[in-house]
């Protein structure tokens, strides 16, 4: 026998009727006519019988509890930790349709998410601020949003970023960091490919400011729309016009 056959499905109609009887019973003692009606109802079909069995289970569960004790425990105000956790869960569920993206709260109270695409996979994400990120094949990023910044750490692979205006009251910079440096979006659409030991950046709209990871003395470089460059942790390559095919991979399905 299949395990699925155990415990027939509950009949919603019968449950509703049982709930109505419970409402009446809780209001006052039923008179003889009503009682006869109820006796007839609960034996008139297997579904009703099953529903009333549950009602009895419920009554035995609720009855016999020490009143004062039960009331003060069950009627307690919602705990702040729990409410905070519920809000976080709601936020989490808001991003679920895009992917099973998990969020965890680190000690620094920042949102961290790990997103990954497998070989041959392309994945689109919408972040909490409305920014959109497309992961090309075999890509891994961390998303670190806190009060100061919106940081994407590109561990490996390639991403296309379409930033959104920060909805928080104090707008935070949008940064993409690789092992070679960090890039600050200046209202924009751009693609970043990390291929050890260099990062390749192409800007489609707006501009991006790059700070090298291994050489803080070098002035940050601003790359404008229609330009691309690549850089190591120490140096920039020459800036050149973007390839017409930049971002073409985001269109393919």
């Amino acid at each position, binding site marked *: 026998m*299949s395990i699925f056959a155990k415990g027939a499905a509950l009949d919603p109609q019968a449950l509703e009727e049982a709930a109505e009887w419970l*409402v009446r019973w809780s209001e006052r003692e039923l008179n003889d006519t009503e009682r006869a009606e109820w006796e007839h109802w609960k034996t008139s079909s297997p579904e009703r019988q099953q529903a009333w069995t549950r009602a009895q289970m419920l009554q035995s569960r609720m009855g016999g509890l020490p009143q004062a004790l039960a009331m003060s425990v069950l009627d307690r105000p919602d705990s702040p930790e729990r409410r905070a956790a519920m809000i976080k869960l709601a936020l989490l569920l808001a991003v679920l349709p895009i992917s099973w993206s998990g969020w965890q709260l680190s000690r620094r109270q920042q949102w961290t998410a*790990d*997103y990954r695409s497998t070989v041959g996979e392309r994945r689109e994400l919408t972040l909490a601020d409305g920014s959109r990120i497309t992961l090309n094949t075999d890509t891994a990023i961390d998303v670190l949003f806190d009060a100061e910044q919106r940081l994407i750490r590109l561990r490996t692979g390639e991403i296309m970023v379409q930033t959104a205006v920060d909805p928080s009251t104090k707008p935070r910079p949008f940064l993409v960091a690789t092992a070679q440096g960090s890039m600050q979006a200046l209202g924009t659409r751009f693609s970043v490919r990390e291929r050890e030991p260099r990062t390749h950046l192409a800007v489609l709209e707006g501009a991006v400011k790059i700070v090298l990871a291994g050489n803080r003395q070098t002035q940050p470089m601003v790359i404008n729309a229609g330009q691309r460059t690549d850089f190591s942790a120490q140096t920039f390559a020459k800036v050149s016009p973007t390839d017409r095919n930049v971002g073409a991979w985001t269109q393919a399905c």
Partner: protein
Amino acid sequence: MSDALPADNHTHLRVIEALYSGHHGWLYETLKKKLGNAMDAADLAQDTFTRVLASKVTQIEQPRAYLSCVAKGILINWYQRKALERAYLDALARLPAQEVPSPELRLVVLETLHQIDAMLDSLAPLVKRAFLLSQIGGLKYEAIAQKLGVSLITVKRYMKQAFMQCLLLVE
């Protein structure tokens, strides 16, 4: 004779095995950091995997993201349970000595309270309140209506809604 297993049961078990060996340590560490307590973290990590095991899932794309999500739900219940236990201990402390239940009974009552609490959890606050006033407090519907500032019809509607919820969830 042994029951026939669903065809994808083996896939399910393989997935869980891989999930466990690959990510149990990570989940445990994450929870420990969050809760600051190794024992609770171990329990919650275990609960998370138990939940996954019960889910019959056969394909998990992003294991850690998936586990975080399941663990988050479990964590919320855990907070709720902690709050319930605290409220219970407070209430016990306020009871006159002769009314304090025996230790065994105390546990049974706590377990029952937890079950009822979980059943009522998703109800709107007023609905839950009306239900508790009637079923635990023993108040008449008229008195509840007056206390909550709603009509008698509304109280009956709340009661039906709460009973429906309980009938669906009672075990």
